[in-house]
């Protein structure tokens, strides 16, 4: 019996060494140490051995059983590890192959620019107000101190629709529309499409978007206008930007100014983007002309906009111009040609 046990031990050890399959190992385990396994069979003969040998043989068979089980477990663990490794190796991919970029849509670059501009002005307390794109001559011109047949009307060559209607040539009419209804303090921007009879070239299109902003309150100064626009320029184009105010003329502001930002392409040294001047024209602005307050009060019994009490400023920014400068776009027509190869870049 002792020999039987030793042989079983050796044979099994041999088999364990040779097996390289988990299932076979499992079978072997059952066949040797299972309830009906070989070891059990051998131990059935224990009753026929002499009494004095029995404890020794009993211990011996138990040791062998434990020994074999631990060998099998060990082998099993190793085989499992190997199987896992080889499976992982099989699952290996070429990580340098391209990924699958999900197909998403795109927001138009002008809307993107407008969003940024809105954010900046909203941060300074300006709220968006809307007005119609088909306007009356009254709001587009008269109420902004631009009388009929005045030479300044050349600045806004408009599309006329008959009667007293036209496609608005700036978003400034919203200024009067808002002031007719609301009282100071006001911080407003109005945004949207405007239309001018401009011949089309790389920097002109007959549709364009404008952000018109204005503020009316007690004690608002030209210095405040400078501050608000400097903030805007820096948020839009970078913290180091400088701006320059040059006297200009708009019938609805007095004093009026044209505002330039130092060219961020060449840092003011002069390049093709700024035409060599080091400065980029970005917008027009000024202190609201009291004549406009008078028009805005036109329907009120008791005037609200007393220029002695309230002062205010207004500015108008071309969105396309800002989007072009911010994104290095050199042709305004691209915004309206709707070439998806252009639109998908943003």
């Amino acid at each position, binding site marked *: 019996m002792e020999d039987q046990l030793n042989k079983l031990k050796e044979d099994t050890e041999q088999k364990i060494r040779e097996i390289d399959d988990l299932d076979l190992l499992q079978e072997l385990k059952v066949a040797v140490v299972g309830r009906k396994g070989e070891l059990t069979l051998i131990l059935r003969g224990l009753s026929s051995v002499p009494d004095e040998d029995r404890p020794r043989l009993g211990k011996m068979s138990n040791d062998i059983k434990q020994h074999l089980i631990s060998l099998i477990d060990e082998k099993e663990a190793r085989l499992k590890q190997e199987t896992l490794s080889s499976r992982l190796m099989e699952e290996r991919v070429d990580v340098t192959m391209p990924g699958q970029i999900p*197909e*998403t*849509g*795109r*927001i*138009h670059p002008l*809307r993107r620019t407008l*969003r940024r501009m*809105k954010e900046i002005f909203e*941060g300074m*307390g*300006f*709220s*968006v107000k*809307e007005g119609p*794109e*088909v306007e009356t001559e009254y709001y587009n011109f008269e109420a902004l101190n631009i009388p009929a*047949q*005045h*030479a*300044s009307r*050349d*600045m806004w060559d408009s*599309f*006329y*629709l*008959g*009667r007293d209607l036209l496609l608005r040539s700036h978003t400034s009419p919203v200024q009067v529309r808002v002031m007719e209804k609301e009282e100071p*303090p006001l*911080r407003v921007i109005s945004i949207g*499409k405007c239309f001018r009879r401009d011949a089309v070239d790389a920097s002109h299109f007959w*549709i364009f978007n404008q952000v018109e902003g204005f*503020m009316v309150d*007690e004690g*608002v*100064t*030209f*210095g*405040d206008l*400078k501050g608000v626009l*400097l*903030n805007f320029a820096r948020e839009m184009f970078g913290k180091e930007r400088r701006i320059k*105010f*040059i*006297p*200009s*003329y708009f019938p609805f502001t*007095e*004093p009026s*100014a044209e505002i330039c930002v130092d060219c961020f392409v060449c840092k003011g040294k002069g390049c093709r983007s700024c035409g060599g001047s080091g400065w980029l024209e970005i917008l027009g602005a000024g*202190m609201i002309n*009291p*004549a406009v307050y008078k028009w805005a009060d036109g329907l009120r019994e008791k005037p609200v906009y007393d*220029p002695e009490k309230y*002062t205010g400023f207004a500015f108008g920014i071309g969105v396309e111009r800002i989007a072009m400068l911010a994104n290095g776009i050199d042709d305004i027509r691209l*915004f*309206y040609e*709707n*070439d*998806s190869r252009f639109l998908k870049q943003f």
Partner: protein
Amino acid sequence: MLVPVSWLKDYVEFDLPTDELAERLTARGVMVEEIKRPKDKISGVVLGLIRSMEKHPNADRLRLCKVEVKDGEILDLITGAPNVKTGDKVPVALEGARLAGGLVIKKSKIRGVESSGMLCSAAELGLDGKDLPLDQREGVLTPETDLPLGADLVEKYLLNDDMLLLETFANRPDMLSIIGVARETASMLGKPLKLPGTTFPEDERPASDYIKVRIKDFDLCSRYMARIISGLKIGPSPEWMSSRLRLAGVRSINNIVDVTNYVMLEYGQPFHAFDYALLKGEAINIRPAKKGEEMITIDESKIPLAPEMLVIADEEGPVALAGVMGGLNSEVNNDTTKILLEIACFQPASIRRTSVNLGMRSESSRRFEKGLDYYGLPAAADRACSLFASMGGRIAKGAVDSAAEPPKTLTIDFRPERASAILGITTGKNQCINILSSLGMKVKEKTSKAGQEILSVDIPSFRPDIIREEDLVEEVARCIGYDKIPTTLPGGVTLIGTQGEEEEFREHIADLMSAAGVVEVITPSLHPEQVFETFDIPREGSMKVLNPLVEEQSYTRNSLLPGMMKALKSNMTPSWGCIKFFEISKIYLEAEPDSFPWEKDIMGIIMASSGNDVDFFTLKGRFELVFQELGMEVDFEPVQLPFFHPGISAEVLLGRKSLGCLGRVHPEVCQKVDINVPVFFGAVDLGHARRLARKKYYEPVPRFPVIERDLAFIIDEGVLCSNITKEIESSGGELLRSVKCFDQYRGKQIPDEKKSLAFRLVFSAPDRTLTDEEVGRSINNIVKNLSGKFDARLREG
């Protein structure tokens, strides 16, 4: 306006580099757009005289010229210009000369013959040449000049100067005169302004002996001065005058016309010279044109006149279109010896209307439009007379001066404190006095009852732009310099910036569309007329544009379809693939004639593919996404619209309210715009949708398991999916949480004229796990109802 710096120096002394002058003028509101420095670019050009010409032996178009460039020195030059002939004076670029555009002249052989220089065109000399006679615009310049042969044309004739190109504002007529610019320069530099001398001898016989002036309507012409000058002899102007005109971009014509142009540039006051001998009758009338009258202008175009046009007329009829252009019948000509010189002040609006309507905008009309100085007429007239006198003209005594009541001159109270309050910088009283005085204003100090400092400012008549205190504030601000005003931020009430519901809604939808794989476009808001026919969309509501520049701008759009189709088409390049575009824009509808038009915020989506990956349901899903996002349970019902495929088009309804429509664009429409794949388009009224949208509230997530059941029904072909869905919803009881059709089937096992629709039903209860029995009861009820209403049969297995 082009201002030669040397001319400016006649009136104000300074010695400033042109760059600095330009920068400082710009900073105070005299905007210098560009400094022109032709002499820096051009050199080595002298005056020559063509002594003889012959054909080039080896080229038909070329000619050999012997050109004298100095006493007796003859150069052999070759030219291709057809406009020159023997005896012409010409600009000769000598060897080594530099011309505009960087061209450097070398001796060279042209087709075997040596040419030792070049005859120059206006463009090669840096002139724009638009005033030149036609033959000289393209060919060689042939200057009329008394300069000696060999004279350095760059120094003597052309451009020995820097020129400031000014952008003038509509409210500053005085900036259209050299003296006006000089006044600003003098104020800026703290120097006095020196005005030109205007003395001249007068004849004894007064001008009123020669002519009478009658103004019909002083509103249209507030002042008309006529001076009579005789003893003139037409000829070239003195060199100093013609070269100055050239510098300022005005072509020298003859001595009489040149004087009028010269003084116009100098004083900003336009003139017109009539040949006195050609005027009929004893008086000239300034009156509106009569119906049916016509006139031939000096540029030989025949103008039909209308009563809203102001004319100058003699006894027989119009001799000039006031302020716009003279008539051919009274034009100064080679025989002219006596002229009537017109110095007038016309109503800006009238001149503007006439010149804009006729498309005749001249240097004169530009000035009249901006409003001229009633009080400035005599000085300008005297200046012109003194120049005529210096050319031998005899000036009749005095002017015939017909004028309305002189306009009131303005005196404005100006408070330095007010300027400080508006500008945000302390402006001292004395500083303000100095600034305003230097601009030609008379300033008196006074004190208000409340003890406030007040300056009483007389506004000079040449500054019609200054009508209120704020205008003076601007004068002070720009003279101090905008850069000196400190940069501050507004104080006062803190306001919260919001973008408003409408704008927020649009942004939300745009984001949703972008996330759903759709690319945003912006298409033009105006249409060409032919879209109504091409796209079979009604004209109703579309407004005609009265003054389009191009056909594409003829009508306001009442649909996004045509513009988006065009955008789609333009992207159908050879390898285009799949296109999905959306746009959120306004359309305009004139609901009723004479009412204020409606504007609607519309979202349009258009899709097409060169493959098979787009169909009606690809499009519909995008709209469903929007309405799902808005918590709106909308219905899609079949609809017939002319521009849609009759079997693939639906209207979006919320209850009975229509929100828009979508469908496959009619193949015939596609064919007309040369698209041969199916195109899917839809549009909804976003404004409407926003107002009907439901605010979202939290709904508890089911805590007990849901039970799903798939049921298929065999129904008549004509029954719509939505009919069945609604019936299931209404008969399913409160445990039925959702129904969705997920398959349709025709074919084997399904009788003809029938179809099978499969639905997934989801059941759950908020407080318990449902039993099969409960769900079974609900399904039985559904089956019974469908069978009763639609003869629907549950498809087994």
